[in-house]
Structure formats: C-alpha cells, structure tokens
C-alpha cells in the first residue's frame, strides 16, 4: 500500500471503480467527475472507500461536491480529518 495519501486515494479509486487505468495515470488535479464519468453511485463507492482506508467518517456538512472533485481536494479533506 502506498504511503502518500494521494497515492492511496488513486489506488483505491482504480480498484473500487474497476477503472481500466493505472493509479499513476490519474493526475492530482484531474476533475474526477468529468474525466472518469463518476456518477453518484461511483462517488458513493469513493466515499465508503475513503472512510474504510483512512478510518474516518464524513459529517453531513462535509458532503460538498467541491471537496470530492479532484485527488488534491479529497486529500485535503482527508488530512483535515486525520491530523
């Protein structure tokens, strides 16, 4: 398992969404919704994956679409909850 939060997130996204790209192909600032056609079903998988691998739980007011748009924004959210 990679150490860097961004790398862990990319690996989780590729694995859980069965994407046919490698984690390294995802740029930190790629718009995930647009580039990987992430709908609500797949975004839900990402939310659950983040909660599982980082042992966190998102509060209701953290469900803000901007926070889940890129690997960078997701990493910021995860860091804010784990530090």
């Amino acid at each position: 398992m990679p150490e860097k939060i961004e790398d862990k997130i990319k690996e989780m996204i590729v694995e859980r969404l069965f994407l046919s790209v490698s984690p390294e192909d995802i740029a930190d600032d790629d718009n995930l919704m647009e580039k990987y056609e992430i709908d609500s079903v797949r975004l839900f998988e990402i939310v659950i994956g983040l909660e599982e691998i980082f042992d966190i739980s998102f509060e209701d007011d953290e469900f803000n679409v901007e926070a889940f748009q890129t690997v960078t924004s997701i990493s910021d959210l995860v860091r804010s909850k784990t530090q």
Partner: protein
Amino acid sequence: MTSPAIIRFGPEDCCHGALHLPAGGQRGGFVICPPFGEEAKCAYRTLYEIADLAAARGWAVLRFDYFGTGNSSGGFDSFAPSRALEDVRAALARLRRECSGPVGALGLGLGAALALDAAQPSESAADDSIGFLILWQPLINGGEFYKLNIKRQLVRQMLTHGKARGSSEGSPADIIDLDGYALSKAAANELKAINLLDPPRTDLPPTLLLQASFTATPASDIQALAASTSPPLEAGSVICEPFWKRIGFVDTSNIFNSTLDWLDKLE
C-alpha cells in the same frame, strides 16, 4: 430457452413470480430472493440471467417480488422484512409444487439474509426444509445497511445540489424516504435490527457464501458470518463489480460460474 411463466402465489395471490422451468429433466429448484430498493433495481437483469442459466442446466427457478415491491400487491410502504420472510417461505412452498428434487434459495443482500433465516428450523409441521442456500453478499448488519443507504442519499444530493441537504440521522417521519424508497418506521426498525451474527444461525443445509468485490479476500464481516454459523461456512470471494449498485453493464461471469459450478456438484 422458453420464456418464464408468470405466476401469482402467497396469501390472496399477493406475490408476483416468474418461473423459469428447464426444458428437459429437473435436478431440483431454487427461489431467488432479491435485495431491497435500489439494489433490487440494479440487480434485476443479473438475477434474471442466473435464473435463465440455471434453468438451462436443469434447475427450476422462481424469481419473485416481495409484498409491496415490484409487481406484487401492496404499496411500497407496506414492505417489511418480516413480511418478506413470509413471502420467501411462500415462494419455496410454491416452487416445491413444481420440483421433485431439492429446493433451495439464492439470495442477494437483504434477500440472502431472508434466505438464511428461512432455512432456520421452524416449529411448523409442514415439510418446509431448505435443501441448499446460495448467499451472495448477504446483508449482515441491518443498522450498517440503513446508514449506508442514508449516506448514499447524501451523496446523490451532493451531486444534484452541490452539497447534501439531508441528515445522516434520517427522517423522523412515519414514512421514511430511504434513498428514494418509502419505508414505514416499523419496517425501518426491523431492517436496522437485522444481525446475522446474533444469534448464530444453525442447522444450515449445504451453503455457498460468496462475496463479489474488487478483492479475492472475503471482508471481515463475511468471514465473521462464516465462522459464526453451524456448521461453519467457507467464505468465498469472486472478483466482480458490485452489480447490485451499478446501472449499466457489469461482467458477472465470475459469480455466475462459481455459482453454477457449485450447483453442478450439489447432489
């Protein structure tokens, strides 16, 4: 393959079913216990296909809708897990009239939990034993399932409105909107009370317990279920996208092959 026959069964013929019968000799049969809500919608085609494939191998298969869902009678808010368990038993009884061999159940999600409970010893004098069980990704903890559905609703709101508008606490109303499906408060409480680990389920017939996931290692809750039953089960996992959560094509060949191979060896 012939088209499935549409039938009604249960009290006042309240349940809608589709019966897939093999063209030649029968080896036995099984009922398909669907999952709940959005999962049932997403899994519909996959459950049709496993019924069709099994019928081609000599199994009679009954797909059906629980009371208050699909084409069965009752408003959606009349669905309840306890009533659905009775529907499973009614479906098993109906299928036994069509079968000379063993009759079992294949369940997914909530349907797997219901199938497991339908296999528990009952005080009924009737011959209602279940010959075998196929449990696909069983709903093990109803409370967790309920929370996940609320969370899925928040994610959907987030994509629609930019941020979630609801609450993870759910609604205090008598009719609860669970990710777009009306559920009575009593039914929601029944759902939340489901716990397949406590009490441990006993006297199980031959059972296939399968997780469908991105990993070949069964999750901790699936392993806990396998260890808790009597006799203990072997937890399996197939690499397969969670088709019960997806809209669109999903390659389900791994779970089909594992299930059909297991059925082939069941005698």
